[in-house]
């Protein structure tokens, strides 16, 4: 399970990198230093994409406390990634 070094050694990587959109909000935006980006990734699932980005940005919110949305709908961490997907990691909400 532990592959601490480098984005190119991600587990279960497929041979082909996809281009996906990622948006960052609130604390994650501050952690990543940006509100959105296009990521070239070999991650097969949303979960793998998160781990890849977490290695890069060291997010200050734990994955267990977050939800994820794919293409503007709440989704599952095991959802497989398609090219051009929009992925948003959702830290605990605080409206109201």
């Amino acid at each position, binding site marked *: 399970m532990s592959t601490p070094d480098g984005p190119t050694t991600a587990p279960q990587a497929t041979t082909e990198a996809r281009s996906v959109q990622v948006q960052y*909000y609130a604390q994650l935006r501050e952690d990543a230093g940006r509100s959105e980006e296009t990521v070239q990734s070999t991650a097969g699932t949303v979960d793998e994409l998160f781990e890849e980005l977490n290695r890069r940005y060291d997010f200050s919110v734990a994955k267990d406390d977050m939800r994820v949305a794919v293409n503007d709908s709440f989704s599952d961490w095991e959802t497989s990634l398609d090219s051009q997907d929009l992925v948003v990691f959702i830290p605990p*909400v605080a409206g109201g």
Partner: protein
Amino acid sequence: MLFSITDHPIRTQKRKRDLESLEAGGYVEFEGRVRKHSHGREVQRLDYESYQTLAESEGRELLQEALDRFDVIDAAAVHRVGSLDLGEVAVWIGVVGVHRADAFRACAFCIDEIKARVPIWKREVYANGEAEWINGCSGHGSVFASDEAVAHSHES
């Protein structure tokens, strides 16, 4: 049944008028406002941001759930984003019903659900210059228990 996100001050009177119905015997409104103190710290302002597309679809869904679950005529809600001063309205919810009990319940349900699941985030900016993102809800909480007795449900 309107849910929207706005970066302008919420026009609560206009929103309320949009909900009027001659069948409505009761109107219940909730406003969440920026208060001066939070957990003992003095607040200077709040910054809200939302993932707008998902916030609006999730907001419409929870309003529909309120209409399905309670005997009410209509419900609407607006959430503000951007920088809010003390006393400003962050969220407005209005519900009209034939009778009052369900209007109260539906309104409380809406604010509970907004807080629990709509992707909106809040950063408190304190009088001493510090600021922090509020680690809000990751589960559900409710103002009223779902199984409580409701008397006089047939009067407005």
